[in-house]
């Protein structure tokens, strides 16, 4: 380390820094004057009256619509932080640090980028936000791969990453980072929340067949579901890996009935889930009686857009969600959010929009409470932070792994939807205590947060 620093001093290079000698040279010249960026204490320290957030969401590719919904929510959050609009969940948020005058008096502006749901493109986009636009915080994500890739980039660059949609255990497990924070729930929590509900609804004597997307997220989802259903007494007949984007799942679905299984668990997301569920229903699986029981299908992770894609096929099918706008029935915060989002855009927000909004507010609030944009101070303010009034009831950002802990929703496909927005209905809330785990739980072991890195 020492030698490296020596070399850098000699060359007047600092990490992402400034040539200090340039100032002297510049001052000596009459014109044109060379202004040197003032020495910063940390990466992209905001100097003027504005501060830049980076919204890095999928705008092209399979998750473009989810990205669009996230972006809507980000814009709404920025409005509320800057004191425009009706304030949304700022009115219900347990912290009152944000005053509607931006963050630390600086007006929030934002830049947007396209992750294309590819780790590469997502990092390119995030790097351009950091290097070119001076973003102080990056938020977004559409898949766990992207979220983990961008999270480690932010760690290296010294900015904060507020993950939006990422469900893999690894994000706050073996790939956790000091600079990364996840509000969204994870595969383990889905399993923990669904296990007991499924056992209650379908009985403890069930035989499950897993179809699993053949990549990292699929593996963690499968492991979690297997663990928690077996804990309830279910037997796992088989787990089969399906190629990403297979399109036609018939050759995977057809053997299910004859395998002795009476439940099919689809560890798929996005288009894979839409297609595999549609096709499983088309096979008539749910009309069959196997082992003397009605055959059932389970989709551990739901999103509203996926439900819309699958249409009628979701009716009566269990899954889990981070948040659902129908919570507004008995939650004032959700009501406030649905109102301000719905009035601006004309339809209720999805869980993607919710997590995007909440993460932005949480970051801004942490800065305000810390009194500084310095990433180390912000991290300190977020770690172990307990809050309420953002739609999920009481929530804690656990210091050990930067994962939010809260109640998890079990949802079910609505048998009689009134519109394309209530295809899913809230079935049960599994309390936080039941989905919580120790930081060194086997599903999350390995990896370390590392140290706070102010960059420069």
């Amino acid at each position: 380390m020492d030698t490296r620093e020596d070399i850098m001093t000699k060359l007047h290079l600092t990490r992402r820094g400034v040539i200090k000698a340039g100032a002297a040279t510049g001052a000596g010249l009459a014109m044109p004057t060379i202004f040197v960026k003032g020495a910063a204490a940390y990466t992209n320290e905001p100097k003027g009256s504005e501060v830049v957030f980076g919204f890095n969401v999928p705008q092209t590719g399979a998750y473009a619509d989810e990205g669009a919904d996230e972006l809507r929510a980000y814009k709404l959050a920025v409005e509320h932080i800057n004191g425009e609009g009706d304030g949304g969940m700022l009115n219900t948020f347990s912290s009152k640090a944000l005053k509607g005058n931006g963050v630390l008096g600086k007006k929030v502006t934002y830049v947007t980028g396209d992750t294309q749901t590819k780790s590469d493109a997502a990092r390119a986009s995030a790097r351009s936000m950091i290097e070119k636009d001076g973003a102080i915080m990056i938020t977004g994500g559409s898949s766990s791969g992207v979220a983990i890739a961008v999270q480690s980039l932010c760690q290296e660059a010294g900015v904060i990453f507020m993950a939006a949609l990422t469900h893999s255990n690894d994000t706050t497990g073996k790939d956790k980072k000091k600079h990364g924070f996840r509000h969204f729930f994870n595969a383990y929590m889905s399993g923990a929340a669904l296990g007991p509900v499924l056992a209650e609804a379908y009985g403890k004597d069930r035989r499950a067949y897993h179809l699993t997307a053949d990549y990292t997220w699929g593996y963690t989802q499968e492991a979690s579901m297997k663990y928690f259903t077996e804990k309830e007494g279910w037997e796992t007949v088989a787990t089969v890996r399906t190629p990403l984007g297979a399109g036609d799942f018939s050759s995977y679905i057809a053997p299910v009935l004859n395998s002795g299984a009476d439940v099919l668990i689809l560890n798929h997301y996005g288009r894979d889930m839409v297609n595999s569920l549609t096709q499983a229903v088309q096979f008539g699986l749910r009309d069959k009686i196997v082992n003397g029981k009605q055959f059932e299908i389970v989709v551990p992770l739901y999103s509203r857009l996926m439900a819309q894609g699958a249409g009628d096929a979701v009716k009566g099918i269990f899954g889990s969600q981070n948040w659902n706008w129908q919570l507004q029935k008995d939650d004032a915060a959700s009501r406030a959010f649905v109102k301000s989002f719905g009035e601006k855009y004309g339809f209720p927000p999805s869980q993607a929009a919710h997590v995007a909004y909440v993460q932005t507010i949480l970051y801004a609030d942490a800065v305000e409470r810390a009194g500084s944009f310095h990433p180390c101070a912000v991290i300190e303010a977020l770690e172990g932070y307990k809050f309420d009034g953002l739609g999920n009831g009481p929530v804690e950002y656990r210091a050990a792994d930067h994962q939010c802990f809260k109640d998890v929703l079990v949802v079910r496909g609505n048998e009689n939807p009134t519109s394309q927005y209530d295809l899913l209905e809230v079935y049960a809330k599994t309390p936080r205590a039941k989905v919580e785990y120790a930081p060194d739980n086997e599903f999350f072991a390995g990896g370390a947060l590392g140290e706070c890195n102010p960059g420069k």
Partner: protein
Amino acid sequence: MFKGLDRNDIRLMLVVALVTLAAPLILNPFPADSAWAQFNAGYPDLMQRFVIYGIFAIGFNILFGLTGYLSFGHAAFLGVGSYAAVWMFKLLSMNVVPAVLAAMAIAGLFSLAIGWISLRRTGIYFSILTLAFAQMSYNLAYSVLTPITNGETGLQISINDPRVLDRAFGTAASDSVPYPDFFGLQMNDTASFEFFGRVFQFSVGYYFAAMLFLAAFYLALRLFRSPFGLMLRGVKTNQSRLEYTGINPRPYTLAAFVISGVYAGLAGGLLAAMDPLAGAERMQWTASGEVVLMTILGGVGTLLGPVLGAGFIKYFENILSKINDQILHQWFAFLPDGMEDFMVTLVSPFVGKGWHLTLGVLFMLVVIFLPGGLVEGFQRIGRLLARLVGRGRKPVSDDDKGGA
């Protein structure tokens, strides 16, 4: 050094070198707080991508432009190069030299194996063979090879990696994830100057990649003008004549295939050196298709074309996708309210989430109006300028006579 090159080639090389070295200045024409700052491309990440994808496309063009063999699986070599580089970072040292060398070596071996099989066929049969190999690599890297490639997330560096050499020399950082460096100069070290509101960023990573780009360009230039290059063009024009002239085309095409594979490996290694993460998407057919498009768009078989094509695509991908309604409103703020909204509505389908649309339209326009690719466009502008200036000299871009 310039022995054997004519004046036009030397001039071309010098212009390319000058532009490359001055890129941080040239690509930043707009003040940072102006509405047009969006179009600045002079930040490290994008400049690095320009030169790295330039290397990739130059190498691809050595195969496609000279021999006419259209590989639809070249991204596999880029991906393999990236994985090799990251593994070197993890196992040996954060120094980029072993990583880049390993990337080139592994990609070379990989392309030797694939080329040896695929070159048994010509035309579209060859294209499909290369495509099949690349898609297999991608599918496996994304799924069952996850232990080696870290699948969906991509291979990353972690604090606990062995990094044998770094530990032996005591340069291994223990408290945080290290960054690739060139004997102590970290790739993400950047010096920035502010000058009349323009922020110029000089990054170590960019200059490291740029030097390798210039070397790659120079080597390609010589290769184009070499007897070897002539034989490759012979393969493209009339393979059977070549056989009856006493030349076995196979070793030539295989050599061209491996050279372009090594170029791709170098590009992949550099991508990993600039940003130490290797994702499987780098090997997908869309990535292979992208380098084909870069080459055709710029001008097949010309020296400069593929570089222009690479720059064109990467520029529009990175710049257009970041333009959002907020920025559009800024641009058209000078118009009356109704007009402003109308203009924003008109333009917004082409930027932000619609950047693909613009790119598609541009592809069609270029291929319809500039059959020779962007290089032809430059030549036309050059000729026009020459005529305007009224001097009889040939314009610079005419030098790019690379062949076919």
